[in-house]
């Protein structure tokens, strides 16, 4: 169908640019050819390719102005601080030094960092394997798979504000919904104020985030699984391989590129996360900063909170460190994982 499409387009293209000759064949224009060949060989000077500029300019302009320039501005701000008279002075890496060495800054920073790592691990160890499992289930031929796909993907399209608030209501001890569910299965005594205890706040929030975001890894894995030629699977089954062997030996190695992409997307997404914690716990990310991640730490530092005044310089510093962390993770992916992948031919 695509082939017909293109031929049709080709015909249309010819009709637009060249008048048809009497016998219906598109006329050829030899003088045009000769001219262009001569032009190539004798005249070395080519006209300035304005069209390239026109094509590239808008994208590069908007991108530079609204993404790169502010980012550089933020980084520059992190190299400055307020002087004794109130004016801004350049202090080099002093802010970064303060962030890592001063106890009042390094403690909350490392707390946020390790919380973020924990947040990321929950996603890597639960969201991605479960997403893979769901993708495997959907890749098998069952009726109504499209319906399941649609339903399971629904939370992903919801806004985080909604997700956070809805789950907060459900887990709210005053509303009793979670109590009711656990009572129904006889586990009522296990009910805890999950979002209010230091030990369970972050895991609970991680699971809520997993619940919301599992659709994307699921679909990416499904796309990759479906591309595996059936002949491979058929041959394996004929050879007597069980489902686990098929998965472990054939499917998984062939979708490793996707696994890598999902991992790096998860990494970037998690270390950039803010919305869910903010919507559920507020900017203080309680209890006792147990759910504080880098995003909320940055927000609180830069914008302040209640009586706490905002500190734009340290805020920009935190943003700079976040950038460094994310870039490091991505570079590790690009150079380490990619190199390993080149061994796998598909």
């Amino acid at each position, binding site marked *: 169908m695509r082939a017909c499409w293109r031929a049709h387009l080709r015909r249309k293209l010819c009709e637009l640019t060249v008048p048809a000759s009497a016998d219906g064949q598109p006329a050829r224009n030899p003088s045009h050819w000769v001219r262009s060949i001569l032009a190539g060989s004798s005249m070395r000077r080519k006209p300035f390719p304005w069209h390239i500029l026109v094509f590239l300019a808008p994208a590069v302009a908007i991108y530079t102005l609204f993404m790169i320039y502010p980012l550089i501005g933020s980084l520059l701000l992190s190299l400055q601080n307020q002087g004794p008279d109130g004016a801004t002075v350049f202090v080099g890496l002093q802010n970064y030094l303060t962030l890592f060495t001063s106890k*009042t*800054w390094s403690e*909350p920073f490392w707390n946020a960092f390790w919380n973020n790592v924990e947040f990321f691990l929950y996603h890597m160890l639960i969201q991605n394997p479960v997403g893979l499992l769901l993708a495997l289930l959907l890749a098998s031929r069952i009726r109504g798979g499209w319906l399941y796909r649609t339903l399971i993907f629904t939370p992903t399209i919801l806004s985080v504000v909604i997700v956070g608030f809805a789950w907060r209501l459900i*887990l*709210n*001890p*005053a509303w009793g919904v979670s109590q009711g569910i656990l009572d129904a299965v006889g586990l009522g005594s296990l*009910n*805890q*104020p*999950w*979002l*209010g*205890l*230091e030990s369970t706040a972050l895991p609970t929030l991680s699971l809520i985030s997993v619940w919301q975001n599992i659709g994307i890894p699921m679909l*990416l894995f499904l*796309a*990759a699984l479906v*591309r595996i030629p059936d002949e491979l699977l058929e041959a394996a089954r004929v050879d007597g391989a069980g489902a686990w062997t098929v998965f472990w030996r054939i499917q998984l190695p062939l979708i490793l*590129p*996707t696994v*890598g*992409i999902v991992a790096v997307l998860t990494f970037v997404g998690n270390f950039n996360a803010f919305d869910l914690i903010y919507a559920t*716990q*507020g*900017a*203080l990310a*309680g*209890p*006792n*900063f147990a759910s504080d991640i880098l995003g909320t730490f940055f927000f609180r*530092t830069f*914008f*302040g*909170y*209640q*009586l*706490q*005044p*905002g*500190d734009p310089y*340290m805020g920009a510093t935190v943003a700079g460190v976040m950038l460094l962390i994310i870039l490091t993770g991505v570079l590790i992916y*690009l*150079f380490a994982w*990619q190199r390993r*992948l*080149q061994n796998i031919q598909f």
Partner: protein
Amino acid sequence: MVLSTFNCVCVSPIYILARGFKTEVKEMSKRIGLFLITAILLGFVGSALAQNKVRLTIESWRNDDLKIWQETILPAFMKKYPNIEVVFAPTAPTEYNAVLDTKLKAGTAGDLITCRPFDKSLELFNAKHLVSLNDLPGMNNFSEVARAAWSTDDGKTTFCVPMASVIHGFLYNKAIFRELNLQVPSTEAQFLQVLRRVQQSGRYIPLVMGTKDQWEAATMGYQNIGPTLWRGEVGRKGLIAGTQKYNEGGFLQAFEALAKWRPFLPRGYQALSYPDAQNLFAQGRGAIYPAGSWDIGVFRQMNPKLELGAFKPYTFETARQCVINDHPDIAIGLNAASKNKEAARTFLAWVASAEFAQLYANALPGFFPLANVQYTIADPVAQEFLSWRKQCQTSFRTAYQILSRNANPNNENDLWNASAQVLNGTFTPKQAADYVQTRLASWYGPQKGR
């Protein structure tokens, strides 16, 4: 090359995404977009040609009061001054500071700014977002103490018109007290006894409060029963001067007294937020609610049938003189970037008047105007709160003047964290007190090294 490998590997799954969007959808959305943009342009033109009334906007954190401002207070003003239209546009309390800061930086904040007491507003004044109101007619209706929360450190320039203070205490459900035959407590021993009796009955929550939002633990817990123990102004001024410490004397005892509330809090209180506690008490499921007087208006709205009573913070064996927390809470100032300064000043002068005091005190029971004018309050519970001013000494929240000037650590936020943790049981009172003191001493001159 790295990028080309990335191409092959990365592109295959990702760019296979969504082939399906038909051009019809795209065409239609382009058409819709054009229509929408036209509609918006027309809307702007229309509104620009509209009325020549002056429109003032009030920024505030009192989202609970939205209805009352819209239905009672602002209509009274607009009746008097028909050419000025005033809009009350609150933001959630926890977001107010951040959102206001952004709006002020960007020049999009409203004409009238509701001022938080002390440093937060002083910061705004120093950043030239607020103007001096020394010459505003009606400013002399306020005593120096009332103005202190919204003046410069030297007391010479006032930049917000004080609207009201709030008093801390306890609200209780009269019906439950009657049913369980309880007496209103006035000492700590009696208070704990009442709580024990309610708990034994098993039917109601003794003390309705959650710790998830953290601020109630500090504001309606620590700063509620604390002033009696640290002798009010003596303690507070001592902190500022460096002669008193959070982990000694009355301040430490207050954490210990707070810890005694733990067994009587609702099940799962660690995940209960402020509105949850309000809902629980309004539904009649709890006996006692540690309150700020602003809660009176909220409960009247949420459940007019609730039989509300009040008693003042209890006294202790070691501290028999009651001190209440009479905290200057809310004022209103003029945005330096306002385009309607004249109209705004008219409004501010009205706020300083007796008429506003009378209206405000009754429309918002629990907010007690600071103006030296005569006003009467209809709500009996609010009257009860107000009467404590005569029976007890007064002070206000310790962290608000000077002590929270630092970004990190911040004394007020630390008090929140410490109080919530004491109630959660993750800090002992001594640990909480040490936590707050060491962090204050790390940056505040007079406390350094203590």
